[in-house]
């Protein structure tokens, strides 16, 4: 168990990649706090699984783009767990549209949740970690933040922004013994992905060199690695977990 | 066999941007030779230069000075002990003569401070404490003495006014000394109203960085009568050191090296503090003069403030101190100061101090401190 005694916050931890990340962190020994915006049933399911592993789980209703919600979640988690060691920012949405048809709201919304939401949680974590002189932040981005994706100028911009945010924070927090990294998944097989048209999925498979799509566990494994002592000398980096989709 | 001074010389202290360091050294050297009787430059068989090299562009000062004033090929070297370099040079010359290695030695204390900017000097002088553990926080020379002043005020009730009175006295006598940097008197109001440099030390509590040079020519008892009708004798010399860093000193209210050096000098000269009739002490800051009264035994510990308040260090008081203006009015060309003090006491003991004469002075003392008291040299002279 690489993360025995640690405590973590995972945003967007009620479904998809976030849920698996939360469970795998718990499997490695950490207590985990997750937030949900509307998936309360799913969130409670995740909590059940974590508690079965013998760890504590805190479930909080919070909108990641709301500072007060975030602050309250941090306070609660730190009080409940006696401290915080890990932040995984994972909550994200997409509202695809070609730019000439994209509304201001569709732009603002995606930026607020995907980029500002990460800023808010990273800021709160930074304040805590720098006093503690230790901490680990993993910001989930996407290979579509490294390259552009048709119809996703808002999503790509937000995910690209996460990369620079991560690097800037790695520089600010390094002297406090805090590692900040980004993880860029390619296509991941989540419940949501299963609902996509099959040609879409096939296209993604064809892009990979391994001839398959990532499971959520493929992503979570790298997150737990980044949060472990084994990765103590990795910081300010973007690790792609995409089966070779990007290269 | 005694060692005596047969010739003295003193240049104008101040802003000497008109001369290089060796040109400055020439002035008092020439005066000293003329002040002596029957002395030729060629009779002098060694030169000791007192100076702090870090302030000058010119490297290896003593050789350059020796060449310019015409002492080549005689023996020449430099001594350094921060602001007490001049006295260190005199002590070395004394040892050379006393041991018989040299017969006639010229000592020149010379310094150009103003080749560096004020901030550079503040930084450089501030590094005289412990560079590893203190300078990293931006300590300065006035800052160090301010720490002493603040503690002295706390332990003994010394006041800013009392410190200010030292400046008033020294500028009063400085106005009568044509060699001094500052020739005007100052009021107490002006002194205590001046800007803080390092609380509680303000601008007028500090001596000024200055350029200048002074010279003494020393010889043994046998030759002294040949070169002077009024040789002045070294009766006692004391020298001691204290920790570089005040972090390792017993307290912040006295300079331990001064106490020790004075003890040695009094013992060798077989005199008591109350026998001293005129003294030049190291008033780099007004608090330094107050502590000097105490460390030299002119007054009891802690009563230095009272001593100046009662005008005991004025001519007519118990022990006239710094009646040539001190470092305060003369300025402090660090290598030259110790030699300057010595020339003043020689003048007094010869009866040649004019308006500033302490009448009938027979025994005088110089007290020259290096750094924040890392080195102290005390000399007792008698006519």
């Amino acid at each position, binding site marked *: 168990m690489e993360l025995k005694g640690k405590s973590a916050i995972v945003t967007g931890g009620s479904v998809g990649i976030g849920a698996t990340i939360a469970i795998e962190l718990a499997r490695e020994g950490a207590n985990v706090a997750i937030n949900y915006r509307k998936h309360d049933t799913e969130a409670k399911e995740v909590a059940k699984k974590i508690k079965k592993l013998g760890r504590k789980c805190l479930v909080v209703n919070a909108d990641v783009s709301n500072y007060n919600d975030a602050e309250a979640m941090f306070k609660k988690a730190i009080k409940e767990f006696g401290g915080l060691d890990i932040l995984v920012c994972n909550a994200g949405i997409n509202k695809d549209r070609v730019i000439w048809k994209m509304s201001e709201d569709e732009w603002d919304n995606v930026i607020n949740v995907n980029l500002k939401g990460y800023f808010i949680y990273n800021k709160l974590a930074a304040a805590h970690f720098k006093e503690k*002189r230790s901490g680990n932040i993993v910001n989930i981005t996407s290979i579509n933040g490294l390259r552009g994706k048709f119809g996703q100028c808002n999503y790509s911009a937000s995910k690209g922004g996460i990369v620079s945010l991560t690097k800037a924070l790695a520089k600010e927090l390094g002297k406090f013994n805090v590692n900040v990294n980004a993880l860029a998944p390619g296509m991941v097989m989540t419940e949501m992905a299963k609902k996509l048209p099959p040609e879409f999925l096939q296209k993604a498979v064809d892009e990979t060199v391994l001839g398959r799509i990532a499971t959520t566990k493929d992503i979570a494994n790298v997150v737990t690695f980044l949060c472990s002592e084994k990765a103590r000398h990795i910081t300010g980096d973007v690790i792609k977990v995409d089966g070779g989709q990007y290269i | 066999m005694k060692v005596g001074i047969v010739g003295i010389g003193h240049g104008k202290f101040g802003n000497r941007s008109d001369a290089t360091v060796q040109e400055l050294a020439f002035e008092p050297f020439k005066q000293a030779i003329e002040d002596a009787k029957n002395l030729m430059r060629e009779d002098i068989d060694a030169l000791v230069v007192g100076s702090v090299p870090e302030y000058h562009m010119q490297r290896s000062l003593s050789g350059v000075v020796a060449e310019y004033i015409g002492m080549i090929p005689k023996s020449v070297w430099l001594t350094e002990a921060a602001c007490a370099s001049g006295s260190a040079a005199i002590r070395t010359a004394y040892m050379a003569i006393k041991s018989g290695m040299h017969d006639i030695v010229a000592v020149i204390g010379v310094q150009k401070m103003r080749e560096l900017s004020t901030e550079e000097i*503040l930084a450089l002088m501030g590094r005289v404490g412990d*560079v590893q*553990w203190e300078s990293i926080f931006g300590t300065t020379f006035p800052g160090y003495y*301010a720490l002493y002043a603040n503690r002295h005020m706390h332990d003994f009730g010394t006041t800013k006014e009392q410190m200010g009175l030292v400046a008033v006295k020294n500028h009063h006598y400085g106005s009568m000394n044509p060699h001094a940097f500052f020739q005007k008197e100052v009021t107490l109001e002006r002194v205590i109203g001046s800007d803080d440099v390092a609380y509680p030390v303000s601008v007028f509590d500090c001596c000024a960085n200055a350029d200048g040079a002074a010279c003494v020519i020393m010889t043994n008892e046998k030759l002294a009568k040949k070169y002077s009708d009024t040789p002045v004798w070294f009766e006692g010399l004391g020298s001691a050191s204290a920790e570089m860093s005040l972090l390792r000193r017993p307290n*912040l209210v006295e300079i331990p090296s001064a106490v020790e050096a004075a003890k040695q000098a009094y013992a060798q000269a077989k005199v008591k503090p109350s026998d001293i009739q005129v003294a030049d002490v190291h008033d780099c800051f007004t608090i330094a003069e107050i502590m000097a009264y105490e460390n030299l035994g002119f007054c009891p510990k802690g009563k230095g403030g009272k001593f100046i308040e009662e005008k005991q260090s004025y001519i007519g008081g118990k022990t006239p101190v710094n009646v040539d203006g001190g470092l305060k009015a003369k300025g402090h060309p660090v290598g030259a100061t110790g030699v300057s003090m010595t020339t003043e006491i020689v003048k007094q003991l010869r009866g040649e101090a004019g308006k500033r004469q302490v009448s009938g002075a027979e025994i005088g003392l110089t007290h020259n401190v290096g750094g924040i008291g890392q080195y102290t040299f005390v000399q007792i002279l008698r006519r």
Partner: protein
Amino acid sequence: MPFKYFGKINFTPYTKVDEFADYLQKGKLMGTQCKKCGERYFPPRADCLKCMNDTFRWVEYSGRGTLNSYTTIHAAPKGFEDIAPYTLGVVDLEEGGRLIAWINDIPKKEIKIDMPVKVVPRMFEDIPEIKLYYTIEKA
């Protein structure tokens, strides 16, 4: 963490007591103790002043002490003009030893000689460079 990270301007990047900076960055104030005669030193020194032995161990200091004296520097030396005026304090440490450091967070009016104080390891946080120091704060 090498010693060069200690101080606003560091003048002695190479020293036998280099590890001091490492401990300071971790929030610990450490002095040295002679392995032969047991004499303790703060600031730390590698070679024993008392018995001249040259082996030592690191010992932790609480930072508690008394304020011996202080001054406020207005005329700052080169490299410190941007923080002037600043107040320097001299602290006699509870376990022995003495140090100089900035007095932060104690209002001028409340600074009194002989007051109890605490010396706290700190870092300049808002700059990219690593600069470690310690400050004198209320006990």
